[in-house]
């Protein structure tokens, strides 16, 4: 074997071992030197030997075996579903918010007359929306992927059939002989087949997805552009020129107190909705999640509307001052009673939440558990 052959062999070996875990590299390198040497002797050329061994990447795959997954077959379908939903929501939400915010902040009626400023305005909108959307999409992709990597690593159980209440019988037997040591739950039996959910036990996926989209969009507005929630209008003023004015309806001075409560509430709803999409039918998990998330949302709403100073205290005054009774603003400002407004919104939220939790609980108890009973029948 001359230097050229040796170089060729070392290159091949490197291409194989660089794809393997560090601790295997030295040993596999030695092994391959032995193998290629033997093969080259028989075939009378290192080149021939390498051709016979084939693509080093394929070779490395065989060394690595089939068990090294970032996200394995158990989770990959759910992963794609969640990823699709999460990406769609993010792209729609961030795109529309950045676009809206860009227009509100940069729009000036005067620029319509000048082609240069129109182009500048459009370019600005285009680049900010594009870069913000891309960044958030990549971020969401990363978060979803990491969550699923962790699930893969710990083999988190998403399967049906183990969500019954815990009983003493679930305790694993103390292994007295080798046979007893086998985890019985790991042995598949036909009794463990989850029943096909009846039509009435199925959760409409569209509703949950609508929930997710709403939570994400509303959450993004609250985080990135809370000031656009309120009264927005275009002014023409001799002193400051043309521009967009907003009177926010929320109390942005106390936003650092208000925003977290809003987000906790949205996050509770979002988690519940994602769980519904993943499980796809009424069952105990869905019912518990619905009750917990409903409670969190009600507590947050009471905190927001009854305890925290959520409304902009200058809202009425600013309306009167800036709008000069245009569009009946003063009248509106005179009638605007924050306490009454809070009460109405709070009542709507509480009723809506209770109705939703009620429906979920009713359907779960009526249809969702039925099947677990019929499952027991199979066992009997």
């Amino acid at each position, binding site marked *: 074997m001359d230097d050229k052959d040796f170089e060729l062999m070392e290159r091949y070996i490197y291409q194989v071992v660089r794809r393997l875990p560090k601790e295997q590299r030295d040993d596999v390198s*030695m*092994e*391959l030197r*032995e193998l290629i040497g033997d*093969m080259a002797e028989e075939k009378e050329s290192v080149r021939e030997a390498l051709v016979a*061994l*084939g693509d080093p990447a*394929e*070779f490395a795959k065989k060394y690595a*075996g089939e068990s090294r997954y970032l996200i394995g077959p158990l989770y990959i379908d759910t992963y794609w579903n969640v990823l699709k939903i999460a990406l769609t929501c993010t792209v729609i939400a961030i795109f529309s918010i950045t676009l809206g915010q860009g227009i509100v902040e940069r729009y000036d009626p005067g620029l319509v007359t000048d082609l240069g400023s129109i182009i500048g305005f459009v370019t600005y909108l285009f680049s900010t929306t594009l870069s913000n959307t891309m960044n958030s999409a990549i971020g969401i992709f990363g978060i979803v992927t990491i969550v699923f990597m962790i699930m893969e690593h710990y083999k988190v159980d998403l399967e049906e059939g183990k969500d019954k209440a815990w009983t003493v019988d679930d305790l694993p037997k103390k292994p007295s002989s080798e046979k007893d040591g086998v985890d019985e739950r790991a042995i598949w039996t036909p009794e463990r087949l989850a029943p096909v959910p009846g039509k009435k036990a199925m959760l409409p996926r569209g509703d949950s997805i609508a929930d997710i989209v709403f939570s994400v969009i509303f959450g993004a507005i609250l985080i990135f552009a809370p000031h656009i929630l309120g009264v927005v209008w275009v002014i023409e003023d001799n002193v400051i020129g043309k521009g967009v004015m907003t009177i926010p309806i929320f109390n942005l001075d106390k936003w650092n107190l208000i925003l977290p409560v809003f987000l906790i509430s949205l996050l509770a709803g979002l988690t519940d909705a994602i769980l519904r999409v993943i499980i796809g039918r009424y069952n105990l998990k869905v019912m518990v999640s619905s009750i917990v998330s409903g409670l969190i949302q009600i507590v947050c709403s009471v905190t927001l509307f009854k305890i925290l100073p959520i409304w902009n205290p200058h809202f009425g005054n600013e309306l009167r001052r800036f709008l000069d009774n245009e569009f009946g603003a003063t009248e509106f400002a005179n009638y605007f009673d924050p306490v009454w407004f809070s009460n109405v919104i709070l009542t709507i939220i509480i009723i809506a939440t209770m109705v939703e939790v009620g429906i979920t609980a009713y359907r779960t108890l009526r249809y969702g558990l039925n099947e677990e009973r019929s499952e027991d029948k199979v066992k009997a």
Partner: protein
Amino acid sequence: MHVGTDKAIIDSLRLELRRGTLVLSVLSRTDEPKYGYALVQSLLEKGVPIDPNTLYPLLRRLETQGLLISEWETSGPKPRKYYRRTELGTEIYKELRNEWNQMAGAMELLMKEES
């Protein structure tokens, strides 16, 4: 059907059929220490061709499963890794061999009836 597809199907089925017998073939030849390429050749002699890029990873896997044990022999002109069956390997080899004999007998019967 296209001839190329036919061949591809046969190839993949043949591969599948052979895959299960590889462990048995390797275990049958490792009662005495053997290095990788000698194993390739001795299997080929007996009519069991196996690609080195399949065999080497397989040897490593069998070692992690405790069926084989390896040792580097560095006294010769070039270092060689010798593999040999462990006690567990021998035990499992015997069981697999019984399994194979039963299976072969049954298959023989099946195909005799069919023809």
